[in-house]
């Protein structure tokens, strides 16, 4: 069974995504790991080796999303990384992967997802319950009719829900690092089950001292690339460097008629969306 795993990221997420790659690889060396980059590189940054942990890297502009720049303009960074999951999922299913797995870039994998294949025998879509955030950061979709429908539709119907399973194994995501315990054999367990993965933005108070959090911070620091400004996102500003206000993005969603005039709403030159927006203000 071919399993393709992907994450979506911006350059700001790159250190965390590299930790995902370095932890997923030993757990599942046979899985292909893809990344979809919802970003363009910072000026003068061109270290392709930073992505060496991934088998393939696609940019959001390679996914065939219609009018991709206006589409991107309607989202902030987190929204864009979330919204790109469906097109990427469709892309990978179309390429023929038997199963596609999504991990949020701030997840680290500690033990193999041993139950994945078994759970997908009776379900086409696997989710994990959110711990503290809006989602569990994990999704697995089988390449069958239900999986395809899930990838295609934005509002799954009731019939589809019968093929959706929520994995409630305590090791698949954890709400608090205080529940973790190290075993004498060197494993990490949650309530007696192996810790399979952990989403580090989703585990309680970030100031909570815990050796696993310290480890994650060390790995993220080790994978942090010089030349990427903190919080960088190419699509955070107009082409003249002016930050794009949230109101502009909301307006872009509400006024498709206006957006139709601007093939590249990020372009601040001439008769631009930026100028139109400034005039509206």
């Amino acid at each position: 069974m071919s399993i393709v795993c992907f994450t979506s990221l911006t350059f700001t997420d790159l250190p965390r995504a590299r930790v995902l790659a370095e932890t997923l690889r030993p757990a599942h060396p046979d899985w292909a790991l893809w990344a979809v980059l919802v970003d363009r590189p910072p000026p003068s940054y061109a270290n392709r080796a930073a992505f060496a942990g991934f088998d393939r890297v696609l940019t959001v502009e390679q996914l065939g999303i219609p009018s991709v720049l206006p589409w991107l303009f309607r989202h902030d960074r987190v929204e864009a990384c979330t919204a790109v999951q469906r097109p990427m999922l469709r892309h990978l299913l179309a390429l023929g992967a038997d199963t596609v797995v999504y991990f949020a870039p701030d997840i680290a994998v500690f033990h193999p997802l041993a139950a994945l294949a078994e759970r997908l025998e009776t379900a086409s879509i696997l989710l994990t319950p959110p711990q503290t955030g809006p989602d569990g950061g994990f999704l697995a979709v089988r390449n069958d009719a239900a999986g395809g429908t899930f990838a295609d539709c934005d509002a799954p119907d009731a019939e589809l829900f019968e093929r959706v399973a929520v994995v409630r194994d305590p090791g698949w995501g954890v709400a608090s690092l205080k529940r973790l315990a190290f075993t004498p054999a060197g494993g990490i367990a949650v309530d007696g089950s192996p810790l399979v993965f952990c989403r580090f933005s989703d585990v309680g108070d970030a100031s909570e001292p815990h050796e696993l959090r310290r480890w994650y911070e060390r790995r993220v620091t080790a994978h942090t690339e010089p030349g990427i400004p903190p919080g960088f996102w190419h699509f955070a500003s107009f082409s003249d460097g002016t930050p794009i206000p949230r109101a502009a993005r909301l307006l872009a969603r509400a006024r498709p008629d206006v957006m139709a005039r601007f093939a590249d709403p990020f372009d601040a030159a001439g008769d631009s969306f930026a100028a139109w927006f400034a005039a509206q203000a």
Partner: protein
Amino acid sequence: MDEPPPATSLRAIAPPAAPALGPDDVRRLVTTACVAARGLVVSVSHDRYIEVAGGTQLPIADEQRKFNGDRAVYLHLSPVHAALGLAPSGPGPLWLTVMIDGAVRGIATAGGVALALASLASGPASALPRLFVVHALHGHRPEAVAAIAAALRPRHAFFWVHDFGTACASAHLLRNDMAFCHAPPPDSMACRVCVHGPGRPAHIARVRALFQAVPFHLVAPSAEALVLFRAATDLPVLDAIVHPHAGLEPAGTAAPSDDDSPPRVAFVGPAARFRDMLPTIAATATCFHFARRAELRALEGLTLVAAESTPTRPFGMVRALAEHRIDLVLALSPWPETFGTIAHEALAAGADLLATEGSGHVATLAAANEGSVLFADDAAIVAFFRDGRAAAHVRARRAGGRQGFALTYTGSTATIAFDATPPTTDRPDVHLVLRGARLDGTETDGMCRFVLPPAGPEDAKRTVRLRSRHLRGAWDKDAEGERRRLGIAVADLRLDGAPVPAGDPRRLGGWHKPEPGWQWTDGDAALLVGAATTLEVTVLPFARYWRAPLLADPA
């Protein structure tokens, strides 16, 4: 001088006034020390044990004294740069502090020491039985340790399990320096998230290469240490033995007391280990913190007592605990102690132990000792005080009269035997050292008679050294309180038949204050013999003398 002089930064951390020694300097020092010696012991550990109070350093100092007690030379090597893990391998020299018989003689490179030891093969030291003892590898290069062992060509090589530095750079097996890890496989998830994990495979490989190069006898100071060593590593060794650093012998019983004052509780070691539990315990007990002065921290409800056991005051902690009439000593250890010096000292001071499961040999001591209590964890200790059990326990123990113990250090490697050879003898091995050579006499009924070589006209101030083994007993038992190093009790001494009485100025250095009927030497006493041709020494058969079984002639 064959080696480059040490860098300025090295000079800053090297022992004060310690010269940089080249291979020839080391060879000369060792050769001189080995004159008339019975053996040469080369030992390796992580620091200058004579300057540091600790559970590893104390047994090394004891080992050195007892080997010296059999007139063996004790050459000790420690890294000038202290480190928690192994010293990185590299092309630059690794500088070691060179100590002989407890005195710093200088610093030398590991390569220079190996060269010096290899060159002994052609000198008088080559005939001596040689032993190699590794007490700790922190700060050392295992490759250099193997080279030193190869150059020495020892009769036996020993590796002591003071800790688990063979399995990880975290010698106490503390994952992320926080919690005991059980030494899981190096590719385990626990190692992957540990600060010591990334370097562990290379660490293990370097240690394994040492064990493959040197056929070690493994020595553990407790059975618990040996079990954990075997669980943590599969290093090749010749054999493995358990040989404690010290023992506790029953020594009287304290008089029963109806004292119902609050329990007197001692915390020992770093304050960080007990800070959280202190408020609860201090509410029902009188609390003390016993530690070396630099470790003492002022905390509410705590009386600070500067105390430590050192090579020169090995029972310092025992005496301090006893003087403060401590009822309970909290032996808090986050890792399985291989021996537990503090726990031994607590029992010798008449206190009971409060220990937690998982503390290795300390837990075993607590479980075996009537009056000591073993707890599941720190929280259970706190509950013991909170619910009044501690106060009731102490009242009952005071009323019953506690069994006392005497702490006796064994000499560690100095008393290991592979046969029935006992570690003591009634033969003091009295001999002379004259002009750098050993001179034996003949013995009849306790009187040793030496024939001195003819003196030349320039020999009016000729001296000899009257050497012997050291008397067993001094320094070894708290109860004895003897601080002197004793050699032989000389009842009569004659030159050419004429008495040289106690107090005679010809008895130069190395003589203790005369006592009625005899005068003790310190085992290496100087005597002005001038042009005399005979020397007769009558020795009182007082006691037994130290003998290192490993240095005895094979049967």
